[in-house]
């Protein structure tokens, strides 16, 4: 199991993948907003999304898991 965590605290602007999606390393999977900046979140390795832990508008802390992959 691999997971993609938030690199910094902020708000979820959008989630670009859903359960079952195949993602490749470097694909953008979500967009956060923090310090008024748009922060793209990319997958660091290939995999299939098995769970999306956040919704648009959610507040997240640094280290919170956003997406779980198999």
């Amino acid at each position: 199991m691999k997971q993609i965590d938030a690199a910094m605290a902020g708000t979820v602007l959008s989630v670009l993948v859903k359960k079952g999606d195949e993602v490749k390393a470097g694909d953008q999977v979500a967009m956060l907003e923090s310090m008024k900046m748009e922060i793209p979140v990319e997958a660091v390795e290939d995999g299939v999304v098995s769970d999306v832990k956040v919704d648009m508008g959610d507040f997240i802390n640094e280290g919170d898991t956003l997406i779980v992959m198999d």
Partner: protein
Amino acid sequence: MPNQETWLQEKLEKIHSGGAPKYHEKLEQTGKMFVRDRLNMLFDNGEYSVEDGRFANFEAGDLPADGVVTAIGKLNGRKVCVMANDSTVKAGSWGARTVEKIIRIQETAQKLKLPLLYLVDSAGARITDQLDMFPNRRGAGKIFYNQVKMSGMIPQICLLFGPSAAGGAYIPAFCDIVIMVDKNASMYLGSPRMAEKVIGEKVTLEEMGGARMHCSKSGCGDILAKNEEEAITSVKSYLGYMPGNYKQKPPVTEAVVPREGRNISEIVPENQNAPFDMYELIDSLIDKDSFYEIKKLFAQELITGFARLNGKAVGIIANQAKVKGGVLFVDSADKGAKFIQLCDAFSIPLLFLSDVPGFMIGTKVEQAGIIRHGAKLIAAVSEATVPKISVIVRKAYGAGLYAMAGPAFEPDCCIALPTAQIAVMGPEAAVNAVYSNKIQAIEDPKERIKYVQEKQREYKETIDIYKLASELIVDDIVSGDELRSVLIDRYGMYESKELVFSERKHPVYPV
């Protein structure tokens, strides 16, 4: 009695062959080179005829050169001093003569004002010899004392091929940069075995002190090399940007045109909040393939590295909007501070490419001491007396402006691209801060949005970059597409800069 000459040659051959064959086999299994093969690859034509202490601990019989080679040779035609551990001799551990040899090559490097390379692959102190090598005046502590003394005087570089354990781990810590070989290099104060015994922690060596961990998390490593060959190639490139010592200027190479690609005006989005890739902008500015990045895997929201502009070395500090919005954190502040000190020590001009929303806020970073870490960066920016150019690429908000050598920090010039925006904070945050009560009081949501937009428009006018240029806050506004030639011209003019920053013994560092 054998012939004296034959006797000497036999003994030398034995010394040059290092430790027992089983340890050489172990090297091969782990993808490591024998110390003398490393040196052959490092020095021009594999030559290093000036070597002292080959007979160190000769009388012990089984400790060739006492586990360390110390030599002077040429690298790309320029003289360097080297100390290199031999891990086939008692795992490269330090005995009394090992330490004495290291101290002597340090003294030589200091006298001759030559760069010193530490090729580290050592298990640490020989505990059985501790009284002879640990606490005394010329014991291991002297190695670190010398390193501190020589820091900024001559380049000191660590190539970490194997372990660097306990006290020995301070050799890389005091070097200008540390090149680590993936999988083989490690740094730690206490081994995993010791950690389990003393504090009950179960952890792998790779997790606790591996090369990748140090290059991406702790920041103790600067360059992660795939193998030893790549590490040696890397140090040769690095020295291509470095003078031999603080009194000299960095070497100049032939000018090369930048990589072909989009123009800066196409790369930088007008929307201040949208991410873009600063690497693409750097590539469009510098001589093709001249970027030597330091700490690429660590605190990636700030990019630091050497490059060439028309063949001349510059040190680049650039915010990467693509990672964490380019916001400055505790680690990025440290990363920037050390890089600026490195460039300033060795007369490498600085180029700041600013696109920074400011320092991170929130409990997490406040508890980590972001203010004192940020202070380190701002102190380094202030103290740097090499030619420094501050380019406001897009935004420079709050103390981010200070960290990126804004006007108060005596850059030789602060120039703005047409996309630049300098302010205490961005329009969204500023309008919220100033008009919060009024915004809340407007009940109709449409009216509220209209009010906010109007106030943001007004705010943007007050921080318009042409207004700032009119007030002489920035020295010029230039097109991104002309930036390379502007920088080349300006660095050329600033070459004669000579400045003493402040008269005193030394600052009280904000650490």
